[in-house]
């Protein structure tokens, strides 16, 4: 479903050119559960942004569901993001003035979905997240775990094929972290491709496929036996 070939991305820091991604080749099949680990600055977040079409490569080719994305106009990339990709961020990135329900509804609003359909999907998701009573609360009235669950709800409400999670438990205590991981894995079990960036090796070890990054390259790419 995803195919990266020779993806390169470099940044200039002062006089120095840093290669965040240095000719990365990677194939991801539908339904996979992948963790990407590696030290800070190894390029794992850049990889995630690249796959999520938030960033464009300086060189290489990236095919998503049969479409070559390099060179696509911004509008087309935005549309692909809207329907194929869901993001979960470490800092949740909920809009503070919108309620939990409205935050979950946002991608559907942006896509111009009809209000009845939006309500139906929202109700559905709130139920699955166990957040029905919290639907009318603003983010600041929710706990960290609840906020991240709302963010996950928002990420999957458009029924994307891929869920990209960047340190999804980074800001959470261990109990909330476990809940969030359980939720993500449950979503993966129901068919969504899950790619998670983390530096937590314990967390990373839960994934079926584990990729280790170093200096913009894939250091290792291993398939673990099912736990």
């Amino acid at each position: 479903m995803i195919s990266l070939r020779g993806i390169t991305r470099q940044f200039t820091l002062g006089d120095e050119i840093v290669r965040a991604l240095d000719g990365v080749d990677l194939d991801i099949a539908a339904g996979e559960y992948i963790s990407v680990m590696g030290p800070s600055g190894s390029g794992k977040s850049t990889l995630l942004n690249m796959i999520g079409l938030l960033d464009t490569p300086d060189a290489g080719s990236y095919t998503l569901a049969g479409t070559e994305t390099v060179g696509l106009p911004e509008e087309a990339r935005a549309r692909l993001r809207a329907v194929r990709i869901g993001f979960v961020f470490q800092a949740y990135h909920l809009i503070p003035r919108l309620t939990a329900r409205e935050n979950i509804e946002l991608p559907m609003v942006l896509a111009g979905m009809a209000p009845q359909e939006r309500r139906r999907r929202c109700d559905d998701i709130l139920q699955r997240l166990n957040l029905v009573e919290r639907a009318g609360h603003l983010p600041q009235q929710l706990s960290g775990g609840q906020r991240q669950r709302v963010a996950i709800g928002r990420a999957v409400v458009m029924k994307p094929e891929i869920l990209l999670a960047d340190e999804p438990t980074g800001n959470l205590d261990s109990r909330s972290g476990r809940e969030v991981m359980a939720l993500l894995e449950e979503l993966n079990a129901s068919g969504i491709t899950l790619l998670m960036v983390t530096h937590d090796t314990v967390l990373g070890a839960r994934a079926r496929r584990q990729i280790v990054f170093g200096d913009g390259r894939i250091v290792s790419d291993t398939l673990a036996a099912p736990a």
Partner: protein
Amino acid sequence: MSNQAGIRWGDSVLFALVVLRRYRFRTGMMLLAMTLAVGSVIAFTALGEGARGFVRNEFASMGTNLLVAMPGRKETTGGGGPPPATGTAARDITLADVKALRERLRGADIISPLMAGKIEVSANSRARDVMILGTDAGYFTVRNLQVLNGEILPAIDLELAQPVCVIGSKVRDELFGNQQAVGEWLRMGDRRFRIIGVLAGKADASGFDLSDGVLVPVASTQMLFNRQGLFRVIVQPRPHYNLDKLRDEMLAAFRELHQGEEDVTVVKPDSMLQTFDQIFGALTLAVGAIAAISLLVAGVLVMNLTWISVSQRTKEIGLLKALGASHTQVRRLFLLESVLLCAAGAVCGVLVGELLVLLGRLLWPTVPFAAPAWAVVFSVLVALFSGLLFAWLPASRAARQQPVDALAGRTT
């Protein structure tokens, strides 16, 4: 599923409204600025229009659709403009001229001579300085003068100096009080005139208050003041007769009567009214333009506040992009916020402006204050347009943000 439609208008508006409610201070400032700007354009143009209407009404009382001839030459006889202040003419306009005009000008319905002077009149051993207006019966028709009782000046030969007069109501009150005045005698200088009528009301003509005046046959006035030259000749055209044509014919007739000399000025009070109307129209435009500067200032404020809003909401922009919002959508959201605000400000401004206009009319009932429709439409459109224009730059910057940087709170 793939919906190509993009965000619905209703949802965009709701989204913008939530933002506006959240950033109350910003919303309030922009609303206030736009309200004041639009309100001041409306109030100032209403002021200009009020002045224009006031002058127009004053002129209308001078009579319209008339020609006025006066002795003396004015260089620019074409446009209108004020008549020469004093009649320092080489040659007088005489009663013989008026008679000749009456024969020649087929387009004229009424041609009335006018002489004026101040003299002491007395009756009942009371005396008073009044304005004497020497004229004829036709003048009553031209000026639409009515008598309370008695009759108007008789239609007699212009050269006939009959000792009769029509007095203004104020003169009647001063000299006779409640007594019957018609039929009484009035002494003017060393002559006596019989009062044959009393003018109704405040008979206002050419700026004279005729209620404090006395009308006598023109030949009698010539004798009273021992003068031949007329002060004015008033001409009322036949219905539908072209006023400019009549004016040219009149000038030609005078030239012939005066041996080729062009020593008479003929003005159209209508065209003078027009001139003043133009002047005050320009004035309205000028004060409107000055007030419109505040629209510009409000526009700059819109720009600044939108910049701030974009900087404050960098992460939100990144998120919207990550959720699939395109360039165009992000820009549209920010533009919409600004346009909604400006629209609300414009509506408030129209209300405030019209309220001021209403207040002005209550305080000065004689001045017809009214904001012209073009000023209302213009200020509202400019408000909306400046909402778009001035928010465009910051909104475009918002739209251009790289999602990765924006999510990290970095502006690009």
